[in-house]
């Protein structure tokens, strides 16, 4: 049994009076891939953003390898938000890949990669460039070092974004619909890279509509609807023989 990498307990997230996550529990073991599926607006992105402290939460707690994320426990049993600097420190160990890639448009591919480790003094310039070359080769983007993101296809941008997220050697990778903005024929090139990472033992949380990927790669699948976890379990259970009507209804629509 491997150790718990990510654990979210009783997460409550509100935007104004609107409750977007109500009492969500979620757990990923080290080295495993966990897929999150669900209809649009069900709170999948919000959950991912809470895991990375990009959102403040109204209830519950997120832990990465046991360490409380985003907050400091106070003596009275409450929580106090961490300083921006401390939040940034915690985020160093979590990589994130976005639907819209979010590469820095004013930097070349290699600058996108080396930016964080050099600015944060994790690696010297030459070491970072060497590291970048390794990762670009892993994602099949060798030779594009000097290109600007605008000159790359969506699939290429997303592969660079994955390499960029890997530069900080994160212990966990979060993916928010990494292939949803891609042309159909570009989807597999990104999924292939993600499969490679999964095989290499990366701990990954993947929000996706690619059920084929979930079936093939995921150790766990979580189905969310209306801000709550409806069903969670192995891909065979959740995707193969779902127990809940809502899951069934969703799957029949997606397939």
């Amino acid at each position: 049994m491997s150790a718990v990498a990510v654990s979210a307990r009783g997460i409550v997230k509100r935007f104004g009076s609107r409750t977007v996550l109500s009492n969500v529990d979620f757990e990923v073991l080290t080295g495993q891939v966990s897929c999150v599926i669900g209809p649009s607006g069900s709170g999948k992105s919000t959950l991912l953003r809470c895991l990375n402290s990009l959102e403040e939460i109204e209830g519950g707690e997120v832990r990465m390898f046991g360490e409380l994320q985003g907050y400091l426990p106070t003596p009275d049993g409450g929580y106090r938000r961490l300083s921006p600097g401390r939040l940034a420190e915690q985020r160093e160990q979590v990589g994130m890949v976005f639907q819209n890639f979010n590469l820095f448009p004013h930097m070349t591919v290699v600058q996108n990669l080396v930016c964080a480790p050099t600015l944060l003094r994790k690696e010297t310039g030459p070491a970072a460039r060497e590291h970048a070359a390794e990762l670009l080769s892993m994602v099949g983007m060798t030779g594009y070092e000097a290109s600007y993101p605008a000159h790359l296809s969506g699939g290429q941008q997303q592969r660079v974004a994955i390499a960029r997220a890997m530069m900080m050697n994160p212990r966990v990778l979060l993916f928010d619909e990494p292939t949803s903005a891609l042309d159909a024929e570009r989807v597999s090139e990104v999924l292939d890279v993600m499969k490679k990472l999964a095989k290499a033992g990366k701990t990954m949380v993947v929000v996706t509509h690619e059920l084929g990927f979930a079936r093939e790669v995921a150790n766990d699948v979580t189905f969310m609807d209306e801000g709550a976890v409806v069903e969670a379990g192995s891909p065979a259970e959740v995707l193969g023989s779902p127990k809940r009507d809502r899951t069934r209804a969703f799957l029949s629509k997606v397939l």
Partner: protein
Amino acid sequence: MTALRKPYRSRWEYAGWAAAVSFSALLLLSVVTNPNFHWEIVGEYLTAAIIIEGVWMTLVLTAVSIVFGVLFGAILAVMLRSPSSILSRLALSYVWFFRGTPLLVQLIFWFNLAALYPTIGFPGFEINATHLITPFFAAAIGLTTNEAAYMAEIIRGGFESINRGQTEAASSLGLRPRHVTFRILLPQAMKVIVPVIGNQTIAMLKNSSLVSVLGVSELLHSAEIIYGTNYQTIPLLIVASIWYLAMSTVLSVAQHAVEKVYGRSTNRIATVAQVSNGA
């Protein structure tokens, strides 16, 4: 051999040109031949030493107030966006005040600051305000502080034009807030900001003439000094206008050149290309 192809032109366009050219010619003729304009006086003073000095002073004031206005405005913009409510409210009040009162009034206030506060500083270290606040100092401070309020809004707008995903991507890498602001957002905001700064500079060129009321010998004041003695008001205002037009023409051309550079490489900004060196 390809046949020569001409673009479509409306008959009305030819008619419009004919009308515009003849009207301009007549207007020019009437202006040039009207003895009341005293073109010989215009020619005499166009390059007079005092006028040239005035041109220099106008350029200096414009440069100083734009450069410091941008720097101060950038600080204010960062404060406006700051999560700290003290900082953002301070900046907001500043912008509110300096955009909400006339520049002319602000200039006169700075000029008279010595009357309000004869000494500036704290016990043990006091400066005589009357010595510090020369007309030039009052003019430079007045123009800069006013410009900074506008620049703050311009720069904030530049920041706001950037997709929120950029901040999130940068934060998720563990970059600290200062890196996010200065390495990720600012260079991208520049693309929006730089052309507007060009506009502001051209506006400042002419707004700086307001400081003539403080007796700073910029271009308009130089012209005033001359027509105060020879009463040739119109010819000297023409002299000043010719110089203002010349300066703003040069600036417009420069602005278009800069915009072209930014337009050509929509996604390349040279100033930050050095991040890879870990600078």
